[in-house]
Every structure is written in structure tokens, then in C-alpha cells.
């Protein structure tokens, strides 16, 4: 992974010093709430329902074992011993104190971590495919490009006050595990007809209250031009994005209002001035950064490992875990492993300080000391010998990290919801727990197969409910906490925004509705047909009557309200 040099460290240290002084002035009354807000947000600090929340940046999801231990220590010392992994790789603490945040940032800086641009109206922490560099079929490793972009976008002076947040993702292709189409700006690695590496550039995607999938703003961008093109696009957005209404200020609204053709022309005409300029990438720079992502010292191993095959055959529980929680690897004899943070009854994405320590131990013992955080709020050990999987599984089980449910219905993605967040209408966590309890039977769960279930506590859609095969959105209806169900959402190459199937339900009725939806799938599916594919084949509408166990001919008004 990327190792900081003196410049990287100095910038982070100077950021801590700057923020310490800003906090001091705020607490002394020299900065009012409005003046302090953008400053704290640019350092990841939200003021929410009970207490401020600090979002610590984990750029493109890469984190080392020592860094994970540091997060554990901070979680113990400054929080209540539990942290939360977000849907964008990052790590959140829900019980920090405003006056202690500078100290937390100083501790983070010791191991090259920070909270820079993890929120606020700026270029946010860059994201990528959690299996980057190890997935067998990718076009190229997206991590060096994500790191190059991280450096360029860090403290970029022109873009410190954009109309709204700006999220950027890099995908290694050919699958889009980074979900570039739901980002403000997405770079998908591709090769042109001559085999040259570059990006297909997507712009104008985003979830939130107006979910829109990004469109191609440039079909092929040579890699050298990554930063000059990004600068042109960001400038067009900075100057033309709406600023009169926070709900209409993301780049997706600009793209919708001028049209993708006009957007393309605007960016290209700005880019003409910047192209081949000083920020054009060089071979030397790309080699320098790529060297940080060289593969670890893999052992040369056969594709099959007899001990692994033996354990898998004779331990059914292990076999079930292998099926869901391990992933194909480009290096023979290795696998990538998901450590599940979706144990029954636990808030999705939550980890105790003890678990963070365990994860660090596992990474050091089995996986070259490296970890990834995934958008699905799980952790990943990218490089594990198949031979070690059985031992790893046993250790992970002890730490409560081996729930065999990756990509299954109980691998729920959820925002922290109204238990923590000031914005949320609804408490997503108890709901997640209720759904998990309903599908506790492992055989049933396995039979249902791959289902992505996402829960957002409000229309800001931090739980990405629009792109869940089943999406659940908390809405406030005359002071009552209710939930609206969408079906058919997806990320990746087949990205889709789910459609609302009917009126909202009270919390108590949601798990049963989900169960009826799933039962409908089980009775309609073709052999080996996944849940999402059945929805695509027979349509989300056909699930509505199943979901409610009765008909609702008229729910158009409500749809309006929910889309806000």
C-alpha cells in the first residue's frame, strides 16, 4: 500500500495544527457556528443527534494492521469502544468530544491517517473496488490512480468551496465493483483499440434524494490526462453548479439541466486550455506511485491446496463460509476473504475495539498486514493462502467476524440512522436487526441466495437504498416513523435505481413484508435465477401485492412525497 513520504506527513501535521487552532477559536467564541461548520466538516466532524460524529478517512479503503490497531485504541480512548464502517470505506466514531478532536487527529497523524475532506462541500475521500489489485479479471489496478487522485485533490485550493459534496470513484474494470455510476465523477479503467490504458469517464451520478445514474462524459481519456481533465470538469461544476438550493446543487442536477451533450462540450472546451499542461501525468510519476502497490511476496503455490480441499469437504460450516466469504484471487493458491461485520443482532458495519484489534492480528498473521474496507461495510483480507483459510476461519469465528452471509440477505448495508444521525427520520439499526432475526435460518438464507438489502434512515440515502435489490427508506409521515420499500436497485455494470412498490409501512410490518417479497421470489424464480434477475424478468410491480398481502391500486401521491 502507499507509504507516506515527508511531504505527505508534513501536510497532515499542518492540517492538524490548523484545525487545532480553528477548534480553539470556536470554543473561545471567536468563530460562530456558521463559520466553524465548513471547517469542521472538512475535517470529518458532524454535529448530530446526541453527540458529534467524527468520520476518519480511509482513502480507497486501504488500511494497515498497525493503523487498525490505532483505530482500536482511539475507539477505546475517545469513544465508547465501538466504531462504524461507512458505505464509503471510512470509519466513524459517534461519541467524540469537540475539544478532543484535535488530539484524535494528532494521534491519527502519527500513523499517516487523517479526516481530511471526509465531509463538506469539497472533493471527498476517493473510493475504489475493495478487491482492487487482487481480482482475477480486472483491466488494471485502480489503486495507483486513486492515490494519484487523492494527492491532487487533497487541499486543492480552487475547489475548497464547491456547490456541494463531490464523490469520486475508480473502477479497475471490467466489472464495476466501485459503482462509478452512482458517483459525481467516476473513472473506469479501460483499454482502447490499440491496447492503451485510459479511463471511461462517468459524470453526474449520485444517490441522495434525487437518485440518478452517471452518464459517459468522455468515452476514452488517456491516463496522462487524468488530472487536467478532472480540473476542467471540477471548474465547470464550481462555476456553474447551482448554489441557491442545497438539494439541487450536486453535479447530477447540472448534468440533468444542461444535458450530457452540453456538459461534454463545456468540459472539453475548458480542458482545451489545460490539456498537456504542467499537471499532465508522467511515466515516472505513475511508476513511482504504482511501485507502492506492487504485489506482496506471494509464495508460488499450486491452484489447489489439499488441506483446504479436505477441510472444505469435511466441515460443512467451513464450506458455507468459504462459499460466501472468500473470493477468487489472481494469484494461484490465494484467496481474498471478507470478515463480516454483519453478525446477527449487531448494527451493520459496527466493530468493537476488540474486533479491530483481532482484525489487525488476523491481517498480520495471515495477510501481509493489509486490510481493506468495503462499501458493503465489511472488512477484507486481500491476500490469504488457501492453506491458511481453515485456521483463519476459526480465529475469525472467535472474534465474531465469520458470519457466513456475504452478499446474502442478512449482509445488510445500513446507515447509522436515527439512533445517531440528526438527519434521519427513522431508526435503521433496530430494523436491520429485526430483518436479520427473521432470516436467521442458514439453510433458508443460503437457498434465497444473493440479495442486496440496503436501509437508509432518510432521503439522504447514506445506506444507498436506491441501489439495493431490496431498498428500505425511513420516511416521516406526520410525525410517524415509517418505511418505504423499493425493489430492483443494483450497482455495477447493471446499475439501476430501484422502484417504489407501494405505500410506506410501520417498522413492525417491514420484516414480514420483506419475507413475503422473498417468498414471492422463491415461488417465481427459475432454476439458479438470482433475486435481482427475477425482479428484472417479472418486474418489481408483481412483488407489490405479495409485499402487502393485499392490493393498493393508489399510491401515486405517496411516491411523490417520498421522492421529495
Amino acid at each position, binding site marked *: 500500500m502507499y507509504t507516506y*513520504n515527508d*511531504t505527505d506527513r508534513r501536510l497532515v501535521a499542518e492540517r492538524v495544527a490548523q484545525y487545532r487552532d480553528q477548534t480553539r477559536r470556536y470554543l473561545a467564541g471567536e468563530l460562530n457556528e456558521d463559520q466553524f461548520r465548513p471547517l469542521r466538516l472538512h475535517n470529518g466532524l458532524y454535529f448530530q443527534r446526541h453527540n458529534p460524529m467524527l468520520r476518519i478517512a480511509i482513502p480507497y479503503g486501504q488500511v494497515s494492521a498497525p493503523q487498525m490497531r490505532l483505530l482500536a485504541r482511539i475507539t477505546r480512548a475517545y469513544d465508547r469502544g465501538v466504531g462504524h464502517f461507512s458505505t464509503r470505506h471510512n470509519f466513524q466514531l459517534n461519541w467524540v468530544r469537540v475539544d478532543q478532536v484535535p488530539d484524535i487527529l494528532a494521534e491519527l497523524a502519527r500513523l499517516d491517517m487523517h479526516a481530511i475532506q471526509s465531509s463538506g462541500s469539497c472533493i471527498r475521500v476517493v473510493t475504489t473496488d475493495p478487491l482492487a489489485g487482487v481480482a482475477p479479471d480486472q483491466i488494471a489496478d485502480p489503486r495507483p490512480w486513486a492515490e494519484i487522485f487523492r494527492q491532487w485533490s487533497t487541499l486543492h*485550493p480552487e475547489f475548497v468551496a464547491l456547490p456541494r459534496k463531490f464523490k469520486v470513484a475508480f473502477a479497475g474494470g471490467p466489472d464495476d465493483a466501485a459503482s462509478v455510476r452512482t458517483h459525481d465523477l467516476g473513472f473506469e479503467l479501460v483499454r482502447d483499440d490499440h491496447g492503451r490504458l485510459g479511463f471511461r469517464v462517468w459524470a453526474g451520478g449520485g444517490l441522495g434524494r434525487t437518485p440518478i445514474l452517471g452518464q459517459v462524459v468522455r468515452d476514452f481519456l488517456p491516463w496522462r490526462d487524468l*488530472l487536467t481533465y478532472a480540473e476542467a470538469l471540477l471548474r465547470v461544476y*464550481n462555476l456553474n453548479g447551482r448554489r441557491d438550493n442545497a438539494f439541487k446543487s450536486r453535479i447530477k442536477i447540472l448534468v440533468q439541466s444542461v444535458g450530457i451533450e452540453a456538459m461534454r462540450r463545456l468540459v472539453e472546451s475548458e480542458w482545451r486550455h489545460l490539456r498537456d499542461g504542467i*499537471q499532465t501525468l508522467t511515466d*515516472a510519476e505513475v511508476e*513511482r506511485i504504482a511501485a507502492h502497490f506492487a504485489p506482496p511476496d506471494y509464495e508460488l503455490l499450486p491452484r489447489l491446496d489439499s488441506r483446504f480441499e479436505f477441510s472444505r469437504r469435511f466441515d460443512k460450516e467451513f464450506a458455507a463460509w468459504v462459499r460466501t466469504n472468500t473470493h477468487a484471487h489472481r494469484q494461484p493458491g490465494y484467496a481474498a476473504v471478507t470478515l463480516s461485520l454483519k453478525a446477527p443482532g449487531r448494527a451493520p458495519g459496527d466493530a468493537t475495539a476488540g474486533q479491530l484489534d483481532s482484525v489487525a492480528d488476523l491481517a498480520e498473521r495471515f495477510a501481509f498486514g493489509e486490510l481493506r474496507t468495503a462499501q458493503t461495510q465489511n472488512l477484507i483480507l486481500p491476500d490469504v493462502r488457501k492453506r491458511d483459510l481453515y485456521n483463519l476461519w476459526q480465529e475469525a469465528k472467535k472474534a465474531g467476524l465469520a458470519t457466513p452471509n456475504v452478499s446474502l440477505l442478512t449482509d445488510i448495508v445500513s446507515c447509522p440512522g436515527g439512533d445517531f444521525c440528526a438527519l434521519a427520520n427513522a431508526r435503521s439499526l433496530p430494523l436491520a436487526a429485526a430483518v436479520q432475526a427473521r432470516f436467521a435460518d442458514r439453510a433458508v438464507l443460503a437457498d434465497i441466495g444473493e440479495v442486496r438489502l440496503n436501509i437508509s434512515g432518510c432521503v439522504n440515502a447514506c445506506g444507498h437504498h436506491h441501489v439495493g435489490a431490496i431498498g428500505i427508506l425511513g420516511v416521516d409521515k406526520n410525525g410517524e416513523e415509517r418505511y418505504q420499500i423499493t425493489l430492483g436497485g443494483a450497482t455495477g455494470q447493471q446499475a439501476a435505481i430501484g422502484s417504489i412498490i407501494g405505500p410506506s409501512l410501520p417498522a413492525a410490518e417491514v420484516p414480514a413484508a420483506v419475507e413475503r417479497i422473498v417468498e414471492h421470489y422463491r415461488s417465481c424464480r427459475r432454476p439458479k435465477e438470482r433475486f435481482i434477475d427475477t425482479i428484472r424478468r417479472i418486474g418489481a410491480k408483481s412483488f407489490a401485492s405479495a409485499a402487502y398481502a393485499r392490493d393498493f391500486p393508489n399510491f401515486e401521491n405517496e411516491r411523490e412525497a417520498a421522492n421529495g
Partner: protein
Amino acid sequence: MAKTLIKGDSVVANEWKVLRLAEGESPEAAKLPFGNVLVPLAVWRARKWDLVRRHWDQGHLLGIWLGPKDDPAQLAADLAHFSAIGVHFPLAGDGRGYSIATLLRTRYGYTGELRAIGAVGRDYLHFLRRVGFDAFEVNDPESAIDSLDDFSDAYQTAADGRLPWFRRAGAPALAA
């Protein structure tokens, strides 16, 4: 109107006034204050030669200020007339001025004083300087001036002409 401001690396007396049109006030009729003045784009376009003659006759320096919606391209041919250009930030969160300054410096070649006016907080001085501002109307300039140096380095190029980090001598060679 601030009595002092940051210019370059020091605090100096503010020798400029800013003309703002009241609601409905016509650019033709607006009364110019005595002395050096930054006029709005509308006044410049309506009274170009009056303003130039005023400068010649009375020796008062002429400047202009742009709001966030003003396109600096409209000034490209006129830049030589101005001793100073102001860029107005109605709110700290309205970042269009950063791009306007960048364009004035890098696209249109403006080399005179570029002044940040309006909601200019000390916490943004470092970034404002990097996009090309060299004068800052900020509260309490004596203490704010320290924030110009909040960061000693940067990764990327900007209107300040700093080379991207990776193009500078001293950037480390390839990792082993």
C-alpha cells in the same frame, strides 16, 4: 470598509473604496466615491471612458470588482486599465471566486493586484493566495496573516505557479 488589509506578506492601509450599486440604482447614475475605487462590472461597462478619463484627469486609481456570477472573460480585453481587481465572496461557502481568480491569472494573464473581498475568513487565506489573490480584506489582519502559511507545501499546481510536487527537483526517485 476595512481600514487595513493584507497585501502580499504585510498589513497595509486600505487605499481603495468599493462602489456597490444599491437595489435598482442605475450604473450610469451611481456616484463615485472620492479616491481609488473598485467599480462593479456594470458600471465599468456603462461608463468605461468616463472612468478612464477620471483616472487620467484626477490621478485616482481605477479598479473593478467581480461578483460570483460575473464571467472574467468579459474583462479579458480591458485588464490593462485596472490597477486592482476585486473578487467578491458573498459567503465563505461560495467558492466561485476561486475559479474566477484562477482564470484571471492563468487564462487572461492578469498580473496586477487581485483582492479578495466580502466573506473572507483567515482560514481560507492559504487557498486564496494559491489561486492568485495577493490582497485580502479580512477581519483582524494582524493575526490573520499567520494563516497565509498554514501549509508549507502542496501536491498540485495552481495559479501561484507552484509546480506539481511530482515535477519538482527533490521529488524522490522511484521507490526501491
